[in-house]
């Protein structure tokens, strides 16, 4: 069966559709032995046209709903990821704070060591060559009663 190049594509497709139709098959006890004739095709087609008009209005609504749900899901996902990422950043910062605090504690400990009277005395004697004052040099000032009056 040949076709000229000018033949419309719709006709070809229609022809293929006819060729592709298959006979009614029998599927166990539920199958039918012979095809049921269609006698009320015209009215049903009209009804079908009406239904198709309704479907055209319903599909976009469903699609919009699905799209909205998908959008919300994506938004939730992105927010969750963002929260998780921020959480890790916070955890890292906390770890840094803990590290700095540990260093600070070490420094406080070292300051405490350096402030030990025994350390100060040793350094004063060995590094600065200081000597203790003789006891006689310690005098107590008498309270000035005149000034108090």
């Amino acid at each position, binding site marked *: 069966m040949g076709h000229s190049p000018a033949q419309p594509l719709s006709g070809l497709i229609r022809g293929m559709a006819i060729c592709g139709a298959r006979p*009614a098959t029998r599927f166990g006890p*539920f199958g039918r032995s012979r095809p*049921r004739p269609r006698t009320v095709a015209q009215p049903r087609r009209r009804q079908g046209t009406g239904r198709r008009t309704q479907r055209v209005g319903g599909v976009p609504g469903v699609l919009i709903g699905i799209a909205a749900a998908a959008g919300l899901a994506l938004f939730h996902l992105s927010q969750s990821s963002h*929260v998780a990422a921020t*959480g890790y950043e916070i955890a890292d910062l906390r770890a840094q704070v803990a590290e700095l605090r540990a260093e600070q504690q*070490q420094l406080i400990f070292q300051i405490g*060591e350096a402030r030990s009277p*025994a350390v100060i005395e040793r350094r004063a004697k060995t590094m600065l060559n200081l000597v203790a004052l003789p006891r006689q040099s*310690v005098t107590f000032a008498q309270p000035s009663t005149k000034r108090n009056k």
Partner: protein
Amino acid sequence: MLARTDSRARALILLLLAAVVATGIGARLAWWQIVEREPLATLALHQLAQHEQIPATRGEITDAGGVLLATSVELQSVFATPPSVDDPESTAALLAPALGMEMNALRERLTSDDPWVWLKRRVDLAVSNRIRSMDLPGIGMLPETKRVYPVQGISPRTTLAAQIIGFVNVDGVGQYGIESAEDDLLAGLSGSVTAQEDVIGRQIADSVYELQQPVDGSDLRLTIDAGLQHLLETAMWGTYRRNAAEGVTGVVMDVNTGAVLALATFPSYDANRYGTQDPSIFTNPAVSRQYEPGSVMKAFTISAALDAGAITLRDRFKDDNNLRIADVRIQNADRYTSPYGHGRITAGDVLKLSNNVGAAKIGLTLGRERLYQAFRRFGFGEPTGIEIAGEASGVVWNPDGPNGSGDLTAAQNAFGQGLSVTAMQLVAGYAAIGNGGELVTPHVVAGWTTPDGVYHESKPPTSQRIMREQTADTVLRLLTDAVDDGIAQPASIPGYSVAGKTGTAQIAGPITTRVRTGTDAHGDPIFEKQTHFGYIDGWIDSSFISLMPASDPKIVTLLLIHRPATWGLYQMAQRPDDLFRDLAPDILSYLAIPPDRPTQPVASR
């Protein structure tokens, strides 16, 4: 031509099938999510969530002036997961020198069957940095806090006031001293968190199911002054070595408040390395060691007798250096120089001469029951209540009780034998003489700051009047005479009046002797070793206790030397009164207590 087939029935059937399956699935889901929700959610939470403790930060300890005595630092603890260690041999070889551990011990842990083991806890910062740089598989580190004591002591390998403060063990629990006694206040309350964690153990944000915030511990401020503590430790360490003593104790306390300003004891230890020390030195002997005090008790005997009106200052007691009670002979310490005693002596003479016979007679004049009750009023026989763990109560026997020996117990107790006290009880008792007759509670905690920054001043129990003010003043005067004109004269210091009393008591212990128990078949003697409890020659506790300045006492000071190396009649390298003479001017200068007596002109020195 082929006709279209009608599959509506099949579609309907398939739809019905699908509906049945969907209903089944829906019902099952509803069962899981509505009916079984709680147990399943709990099960899921247990599988996903990790429960962790959030440790509370332990409070710091500072001295009266804010010098940091104890704090906590965060250090790393090294652990291993043996199944993840690639090569235990080489890992052990690398870690052993860094951790300061033996190779075999380390290898044993790295090849352990346990899934997780500690290698070393709380290593120094340098060590943790070194181990981190090695990046060994199966080796990790976790942060842990460590209690540290930054102020060094005067003697090698000690920290200042170690036996006052105590330390915190590896589990974070206070041991000994204030760390133990005030553990609840210092430790705070740890919190907890239940949250999901990722595969490497990081907490996932917004996944916290339960959070209990920790409550940090309070910071403690002590009454101890680090500078004065250093002065006292320096002096006590010197006499500890000079006397080759078994131990020494020095206490300086405010007579009016009971605030302990310094408390030095040796041998001491380094609280940062308590694990390497002998545990027997962890307790504070000033509160935990009970000993027979000797002559320092005579002041309490005379106080009790004067306060009860049993004697007056003019009453005289015959001292012939020979008082026999129940076949026991009581003699004086100076029996070799004055074998017949000192004749008729007053209560003042008893303190000046430190006379045993006189003190025993005063005690018996008062009556054994009243003497016993007076000693109990002074606080002997029960803990003082100081906030240092391990305080002993001392032992004072009721002369008429099951362990008493009637008048003999009373007579011996009157001059400080046959009973045991702690150094802190003695100090508290003398403080009552110095402050007009009120027994104060010794304490080392000045106050604490709660995590919200509010400072709470420590309020020790109110003092109790235990004798009349006039009695206290009288005994104070007698004690001043004992230093000015008595055997405690070496303790006198220029410019200050000192009321004080020396005390030397023998130490009892097990004595093993060889006793002849009979003869054998050949007529040779048979000897057996027998052990009995008695006073051991050369074993003494020598002390000096003082109130300064005697005209208006501010501080009470006790210097006690336990089992010094002695020779002759208790001769020792440095007696407590000699030590006091060297130390007291420094203490008075440090506390800025002005002289109360005219000092010699500078030109005459």
